[in-house]
């Protein structure tokens, strides 16, 4: 790093334009920062002119999402997939997928499938939590108790701190503990057990004990009508709990592969399942035992104009926003400058929130020089703050625009106002436009 001349805080320093003329960003003429309030639209914003959301509030874009792998071949070619089905007869020749099967599953079925495999292959594995024995309030444990016995899949008393503590005890004895917290909103009674005990156990015992065999599953994020306590995204609260991993899948295939990896990871993992996707996200999922790597983000759509980074449910809002950008509906036509519509946006699914995949994010932002982070949790102290700070530290001179965060507001998740709380497609679109035009 060359030494900078001393400068005072208020002398504006010319921003280095490191973009080569051949860059795909070259057509965008740099503009001065725009006022924070957007121009008054000539016509009212028409996202409500489209079909109204169903009463359940599920995401209209999920059903048609291209992020989902709807063919067997696509499912079997999921990036970074590793197979644990050892028999030679099932082993494919490289590049072929002749033997392995897939099945159409929604997210809860994929989660159930992962736990069934874990229980089948590991006699010490146990699944427990509130109401899991009859199949779970989201059906993620359907028939597991019948299949594996009530001593392996069982209800606990209604006590989250008890569930977490019990799981820690099991895991400390080397048993695979798969605990369920009914809603991530109710994980806080277990916060002490997870942050003070599970996260610190390996460290404080000098490595003599560990609870790597503990996985805590919990449904998360908004569901259309969850209000304050059935909508939360608590992942940010666990960011500082060194020793714990936090994983959030975006789809059935991801849920199965990441959950199996979480169950077998040598660290306690908090696995947060976006509950709105339990039924709405459907894709082909390999029936075999497979894993997806923890700590690795996935580039879903390649691009060079801007990096759009998210995880869980908002990825579908991001996809919708990119569609609005490419082909804005008439209502948004005036608000989306034609010069920006062909901008190629790189969409990244972070997948593991902690420890997150810095190299992939840096590689992308070094290329695109613009970053928008999207999550449902409130902004202050959220995951976006952590990522923005690290990216800014490393790519300060390369950034063409400030890192933007599209997040829930710093309020509890409200019931009647949810449509205006969540980072939906139009909010993401707006941030993308503002960032491209910065």
């Amino acid at each position, binding site marked *: 790093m060359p030494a900078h001349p001393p400068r005072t805080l208020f002398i504006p320093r010319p921003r280095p334009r490191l973009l080569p003329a051949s860059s795909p960003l070259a057509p965008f003429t740099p503009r001065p920062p725009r006022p924070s309030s957007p121009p008054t639209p000539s016509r009212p914003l028409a996202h409500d002119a489209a079909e109204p959301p169903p009463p359940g509030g599920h995401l209209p874009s999920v059903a048609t999402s291209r992020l989902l792998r709807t063919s067997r071949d696509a499912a079997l070619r999921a990036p970074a997939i590793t197979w644990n089905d050892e028999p030679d007869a099932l082993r494919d020749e490289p590049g072929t997928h002749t033997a392995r099967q897939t099945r159409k599953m929604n997210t809860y079925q994929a989660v159930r499938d992962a736990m069934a495999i874990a229980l089948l292959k590991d006699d010490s594995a146990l699944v427990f939590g509130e109401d899991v024995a009859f199949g779970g309030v989201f059906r993620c444990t359907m028939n597991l108790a019948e299949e594996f016995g009530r001593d392996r899949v069982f209800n606990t008393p209604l006590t989250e701190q008890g569930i977490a*503590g019990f*799981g820690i*005890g099991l895991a400390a*004895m*080397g048993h695979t503990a798969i605990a369920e917290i009914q809603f991530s909103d109710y994980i806080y009674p277990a916060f002490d057990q997870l942050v*003070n005990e599970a996260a610190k156990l390996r460290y404080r015992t000098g490595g003599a*004990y560990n609870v790597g065999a503990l996985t805590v599953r919990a449904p998360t994020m908004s569901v259309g009508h969850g209000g304050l306590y059935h909508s939360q995204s608590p992942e940010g609260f666990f960011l500082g709990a*060194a020793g714990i991993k936090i994983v959030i899948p975006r789809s059935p295939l991801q849920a199965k592969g990441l959950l199996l990896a979480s169950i077998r990871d040598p660290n306690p993992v908090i696995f947060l399942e976006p509950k709105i996707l339990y039924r709405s996200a459907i894709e082909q999922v390999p029936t075999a035992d497979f894993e997806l790597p923890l700590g690795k983000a996935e580039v879903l759509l390649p691009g060079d104009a801007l990096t759009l980074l998210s995880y869980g449910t908002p990825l579908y809002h991001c996809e919708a926003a990119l569609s609005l950008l490419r082909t804005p509906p008439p209502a948004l036509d005036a608000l989306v400058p034609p010069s920006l519509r062909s901008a190629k946006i790189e969409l990244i699914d972070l997948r593991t929130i902690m420890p997150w995949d810095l190299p992939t994010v840096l590689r992308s932002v070094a290329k695109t020089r613009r970053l928008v982070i999207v999550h449902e949790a409130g902004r202050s102290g959220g995951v976006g703050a952590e990522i923005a700070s690290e990216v800014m530290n490393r790519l300060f001179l390369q950034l063409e625009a400030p890192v933007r965060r599209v997040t829930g507001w710093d309020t509890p998740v409200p019931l009647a106002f949810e449509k205006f709380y969540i980072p939906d497609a139009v909010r993401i679109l707006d941030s993308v436009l503002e960032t491209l035009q910065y």
Partner: protein
Amino acid sequence: MLRRAPRPLRPRLAARLCQPQPQPPRRTSSTSTTPGTSTSPTATHRPHPPSPPAHGHLPGAPRSALTTELHFFNSVLEGQQIPTYRVVDGNGDVVQGAEVPDVGREFARRLYETMMMLPSLDTVLYSAQRHGSISFYMTTHGEEASVVGSAAALEPTDEVLGQYRELGVLLWRGYPLSSIMAQVFSSTDDSATKGRQMPVHFGSPPHHFHTISSPLATQIPQAAGVAYALKRDPARRGSVAVCYFGEGAASEGDFHAGLGMASVLGGPCIFFCRNNGFAISTPAAEQYAGDGIAARGPGYGVYTIRVDGNDAWAVYNAVKEARRLTLENQKPVLVEAMTYRVGHHSTSDDSYAYRAKQEVEDWKRVDNPLFRLRKYLEARGWWSAEEESALRLSQRKEIMAAFQHAEARPKPPLGEMLRDVWGGEEPWMLREQREELRGLLGKYGAVWEPWRRELARFEGGGRDVMHPGAEGVGVGVEEDPDEPQ
């Protein structure tokens, strides 16, 4: 007294619900429960059920006997406190009718010698803290019989989850003094916590003693999980989980969670409460209004006993029987040992700020667990004054040798600060932060006096971080090939 007949049930529902319950009543109310005895005018117009309803019908309490007596149960106010089991009195004499455990001379002597080791250790380490050699310490003064007596009744492979005042369990299991000293001094030999935790946070998998942590009561639901694991594992059949905690910790939600989980889910588990009358400055009277901790056990459907915690043989008998019970039923057992915290809460506490010094002195004299056991041994000719002074001398010598050795040892390699956080591949942030620390040490390690002085106390003087790889201790800081520069 207000009395009222139970409201008659609707006939069809009543007929169905008043069928004999699968489980027979344990106890019937002395008061008649037949609706026919009611003075209610409507009752005479309704058909009587075939048999009088003896029990409640709702699923929350199916075995509850029905009664016409409007009575609010309170074991404390009704003087139905749980009695305290005792074998030996304050003078070491066996109480009439009590059964002394069938243990031989050597076992009894070993129990006493282990109990005696605690105050000897406590005295040395307490003053070591006062002189600044160690940062913190907590004594067991007054609770020697509770801790060692219970440990003696356990098998050495029983899984122990403690609070922090259970060093006696480790001593009974042969945990070496060198390990104790290494932990309290945070020396490089501290395999229990690698210098990461405060003193007295011991732990040792070979001794089946789960590493202590400071947050109170967190070990209680964990013990329920350990017990469940023992129940499931055929290789561990015959082992039990033992969970120690104080009466203050029992006010934490985790106590409720742990007993609830253990009683419902089962598994061999002994919950052992050291009720020493104080949680730091808070007397037991400000901790609970009920009949101590024991009275809560039956509320969870847990076999419960209260025992004289200053009576080593009572504690031994109770825990021995608790162990048998919990193994037989695969259900938890609660033992409340009543004792007195003679020492200060910790070295950070002056207990005379909230209790009279005279009171403590009286306790030491009037009801001293060590004195009681010594008298018992002496009465059998198993111990003598000469042996007493010889023991004190030899223990003190042993302790001082271990103390001096540990005091002279360096702290662990500095790189231990950043290890064992995550298992498996080390995340980038730790790799990077080690590198950041390396840079800082290179810049300031030799010139910034507070660091320079401190580094000299670590094994290798911090070189494992400053020159990774050179010491064979540090993890090499590798450039991530993926990471753009």
